[in-house]
């Protein structure tokens, strides 16, 4: 089976000119996405990343999130995403727990937490415009071959647990969803769910592996902003948890102004109350 980065390379070769990621004025084609991944890989290599090491991704949904995740995977690294709203204590706990070798984060988060992160045991921190290296105790602890991500559960039922996902896991999941929804390169979706959640991660992977377009909306929780983005970018699908649907139906004119390009809806992460489903 192909690894995630090999599968993405195939998509880039097939549809280089298709739009892959839209975020405000930024519009990356698949070709551009491949170049951004290559740039991130060069920076990660310079920072000392080796195959089998774990890299923390502490970013909100963004084009940078996508290129960073794919860059780490392409170098044989393991991505450990942390919710962008997580407190520094949780980030430090995760770094220790997974023996994180480095972190990719925003300049704002770095500015507030530089001291804590610098002393956390990581070897590097990569920001959009710069990178930092730190002294790290040498160790040869490498992840098992084929491991791609460690996703943490929310902790509702106790301490959050790290779920190990292999490249094969991600590819099989993406292929199953892709087949079920008949996704094609002409599909487009506004990313409503955080990529750090398995559902959001799956939405990202399935659309990338279809050669489809992912739109990053700055305010996905505001139905009016979401609908404007969906209209502007001719979204073909919507994926959300029950509260996203409640918001879409209560806080907007969604029903009266249906978006003609929409062809599929998916819901997961919890039960959809019947009255909401009926609406």
């Amino acid at each position, binding site marked *: 089976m192909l690894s995630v980065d090999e599968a993405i390379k195939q998509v880039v070769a097939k549809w280089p000119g298709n739009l892959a990621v839209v975020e405000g004025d930024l519009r990356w084609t698949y070709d551009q996405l491949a170049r951004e991944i290559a740039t991130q890989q060069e920076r990660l290599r310079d920072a000392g990343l080796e195959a089998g090491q774990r890299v923390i991704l502490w970013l909100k949904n963004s084009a940078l999130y996508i290129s960073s995740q794919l860059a780490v995977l392409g170098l044989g690294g393991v991505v450990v995403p942390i919710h*962008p709203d997580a407190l520094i204590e949780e980030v430090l706990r995760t770094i220790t727990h997974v023996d994180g070798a480095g972190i990719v984060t925003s300049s704002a988060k770095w500015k507030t937490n530089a001291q804590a992160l610098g002393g956390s045991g990581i070897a590097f921190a990569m920001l959009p415009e710069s990178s930092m290296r730190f002294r790290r105790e040498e160790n040869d602890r490498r992840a098992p071959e084929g491991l791609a991500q460690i996703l943490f559960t929310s902790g509702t039922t106790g301490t959050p647990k790290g779920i190990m996902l292999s490249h094969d896991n991600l590819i099989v999941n993406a292929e199953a969803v892709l087949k079920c929804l008949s996704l094609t390169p002409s599909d487009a979706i506004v990313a409503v769910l955080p990529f750090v959640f398995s559902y959001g991660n799956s939405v990202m992977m399935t659309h990338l592996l279809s050669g489809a377009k992912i739109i990053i909306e700055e305010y996905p929780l*505001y139905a009016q902003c979401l609908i404007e983005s969906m209209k502007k970018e001719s979204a073909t699908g919507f994926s959300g948890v029950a509260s996203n649907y*409640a*918001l879409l139906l209560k*806080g907007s004119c969604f029903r009266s102004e249906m978006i003609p390009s929409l062809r599929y809806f998916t819901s997961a992460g919890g039960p959809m109350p019947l009255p909401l489903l009926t609406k």
Partner: protein
Amino acid sequence: MALPAENVIRQFIVDNFLFGQDEGHLSTRDSLLEKGLIDSTGILELVGFLQSHFGLKIEDEEIVPSNLDSIEKITRFLETKRGDIVAQR
């Protein structure tokens, strides 16, 4: 005497999204989304509260970040809404 709208809004946010613990960290200009204080359910709760407490009808197209994403923005939005209501009477 009624509390100024800003205080009422702050109290609601502190009680519902900060579990009653403000400790003076939340400024009137802080983005509720960027601070991670509000999610999709929280926005609906906030709108419901503003409607019932201030006796206003908030239209769907008014539920946007420029009206609701900070204490300052909410206060300004309420002032505009109330001004509109008075003008219509």
